[in-house]
């Protein structure tokens, strides 16, 4: 046997070969390119085509961006400096920087006030967004922030935001006194108490107590206005949206039908129509001379619009929960408010996060629609005053590109945060 074997095998290695390096085509950049860019003839052709397009884009945009003029008094001066070369006229951004951020009517000597409010915004939302990182005590500041921001941005007597705050406190005290007996008594009693408090303090002479210079609402503008509208409307529309979603699922027919009507009506009407109503139609119904603040009207309309959408998103979350969860709450002997607060909503809201973020990002971008009712938000500033000035008529790319960059930063930030939050709340089994 062994003989036959010996003849059939010509050569037997009796020692190990030294380890060789992998062939050149199977390591490093070349392997990566072969695997990802040129894995087949078709893919290779597509890669080359994409490279060609990229080259064209970059070779067009880069000289324009790098060779830009940052210091010139007008578009004509820009063109003289460029002298026929390619280059953007970014001087419009430097000259109108403050107008793009604050609008053209906000008094320039007090730009620090909205800037400070903007910085404090981060302090206020940090404990809300990153609950585990920051101490719970910071939430007190978050609760005070709306009043501080109002005082900083609009100015006036400090007693206005203080009384507004105390009204809420009074409402809460009444609520907590009566809620043990009946939720409805506590809820409506609280609202009534707050309104009574505001009505009574409305008669007090509050002019000039620790007053900052007053800035009228119509003087707000620029990206500041987008941020004000976006922040206020998103934060208001989430609680309203939750209430509407729960109302729509309610067993009580009147509440259910009110919620359905509201949601379906608002969703059936374009936002721009609501804005026109806020701006134009209300002016006919209010007595002449009454000045119902335009920003307040717009905030109410956008909040209504957004809360209808958020209600539908949350209803989706509620519907996605198995019926067992509701029954579990009942079997533990929890009442409606408790089972919602402790069992249903935490799960439903978690499911709804992507939807809510989607609505928020869309809403933030929709705030630019206010430019059609002659408010000067970022886009309104660009399309109106800046492009209409004799100096800058004709600078389109630089201005609108800048607006796109600002909006991208904010919206991308929101979307990244929501993905992080989803990972944090991940409890399912994978």
């Amino acid at each position: 046997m062994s003989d036959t074997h010996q003849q059939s095998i010509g050569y037997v290695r009796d020692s190990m070969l030294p380890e060789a390096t992998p062939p050149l085509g199977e390591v490093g950049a070349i392997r990566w390119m072969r695997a990802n860019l040129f894995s087949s003839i078709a893919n290779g052709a597509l890669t080359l085509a994409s490279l060609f397009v990229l080259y064209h884009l970059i070779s067009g945009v880069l000289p324009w961006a790098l060779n830009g003029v940052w210091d010139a008094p007008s578009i004509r001066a820009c063109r003289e400096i460029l002298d026929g070369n390619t280059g953007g006229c970014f001087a419009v951004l430097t000259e109108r920087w403050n107008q793009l951020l604050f609008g053209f009517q906000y008094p320039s000597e007090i730009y620090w006030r909205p800037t400070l409010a903007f910085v404090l915004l981060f302090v206020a939302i940090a404990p809300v967004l990153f609950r585990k990182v920051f101490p719970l005590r910071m939430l007190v500041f978050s609760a005070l922030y709306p009043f501080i921001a109002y005082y900083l941005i609009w100015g006036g007597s400090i007693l206005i935001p203080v009384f507004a705050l105390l009204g809420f406190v009074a409402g809460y005290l009444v609520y907590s006194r009566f809620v043990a007996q009946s939720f409805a008594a506590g809820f409506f009693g609280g609202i009534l108490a707050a309104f009574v408090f505001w009505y009574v303090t409305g008669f007090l002479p509050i002019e000039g107590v620790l007053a900052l210079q007053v800035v009228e609402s119509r003087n707000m503008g620029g990206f500041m206005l987008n941020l004000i509208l976006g922040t206020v409307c998103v934060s208001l529309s989430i609680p309203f949206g939750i209430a509407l979603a729960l109302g729509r699922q309610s067993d009580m027919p009147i509440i259910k039908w009110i919620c359905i009507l509201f949601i379906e009506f608002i969703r059936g009407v374009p936002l721009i129509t609501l804005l026109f109503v806020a701006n134009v139609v209300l002016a006919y119904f209010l007595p002449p001379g009454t000045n119902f603040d335009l920003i307040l009207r717009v905030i109410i309309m956008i909040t209504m619009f957004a809360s209808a959408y958020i209600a539908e998103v949350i209803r989706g979350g509620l519907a996605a929960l198995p019926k067992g969860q509701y029954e579990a709450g009942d079997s533990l002997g929890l009442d409606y408010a408790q089972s919602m607060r402790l069992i249903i909503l935490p799960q439903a809201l978690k499911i709804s996060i992507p939807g809510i973020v989607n609505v928020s990002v869309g809403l933030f971008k929709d705030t630019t629609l206010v430019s059609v009712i002659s408010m000067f938000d970022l886009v309104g500033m660009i399309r109106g005053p800046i492009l209409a000035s004799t100096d800058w008529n004709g600078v389109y790319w630089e201005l609108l590109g800048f607006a796109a960059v600002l909006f991208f930063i904010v919206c991308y930030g929101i979307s990244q945060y929501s993905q992080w939050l989803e990972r944090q709340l991940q409890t399912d089994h994978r």
Partner: protein
Amino acid sequence: MTKTVTLGALTVAAFAAGAAGAATLDDVKARGSLNCGVTTGLVGFAAPDANGEWEGFDVGVCRAVAAAVLGDPTAVTFVPTTGKTRFTALASGEIDLLARNTTWTYSRDVDLKFEFVGVNYYDGQGFLVPKALGVSSAKELSGATICIQTGTTTELNLADYFRKNNMEYQPVPIETNGEAQQQYLAGACDVYTTDASGLAATRAAFETPGDHVVLPEIISKEPLGPLVRHGDSEWGDVARWTLNALIAAEEYGITSANVEELSAGTDSPEIDRILGTEDNLGAMMGLEPTWAKAAIAAGGNYGELFEKNIGENTPIGLSRGLNAQWTDGGLLYAPPFR
């Protein structure tokens, strides 16, 4: 529900009461500032500068009226309006005067219940062509491709004009002036047509404005003027005669530079009457005797306003054309002050 109805009825009643008893002049004096509606931005006519100060040709009218009524050209609250919100803003009383390059038409005057107090700019539809096309008259445009804003009266005017002259054209529909600029420069159309003042402003924004010309033909009438609400003739008079004072001031050579000197008394009775040195025309309207002097001192007479904002020495470079004094072959003709 009953409550809302009552509230609604109350507000409507209050609105009606307010509108009926509208004495805009008294309101403006009590308020201490004029609420003047302007555009949200139109090159040369109204736009805020880098410091947020409104300037422009229409803005000049607002300032003149404020100076005439209150003696202070800065006592104006400018309310920017869009083409869609301008008429409701005026009708609802949010603004006292609308000076927003608005064309005086029959239906706006009669049906919308406004009162045009005059014309501060005679505009009309024109044509912008590249010099390289070698065209010197609109009559030579047969067969051209033309950029035109859809759904406007300019579209209809253009069709009428070409049919009347037995010419053919190829329309390129566009939405906004910005889009038109890009299309025209990219060569998508040979000709761009809109109001002549708009053409001049568009041309001013070009990299080489000298390569393009506005043809001499004007094919439609667009008289632009300030307007007020129906039913308050006293206030209408104030606005109308302030505008007339600016126009007359140019005719008689009263400028912002020499108004002080002339108001000491001249040998021309008409100038003396305008400036309040002789007679007291202002009192008939409930204004100071020096109302017109203040209006002229605010930004200069009509010609000065024109030259400063849209005239030939500005980048917009509009020539006076129809907007010259009647003595120079234009249409500006202020009735006598007596």
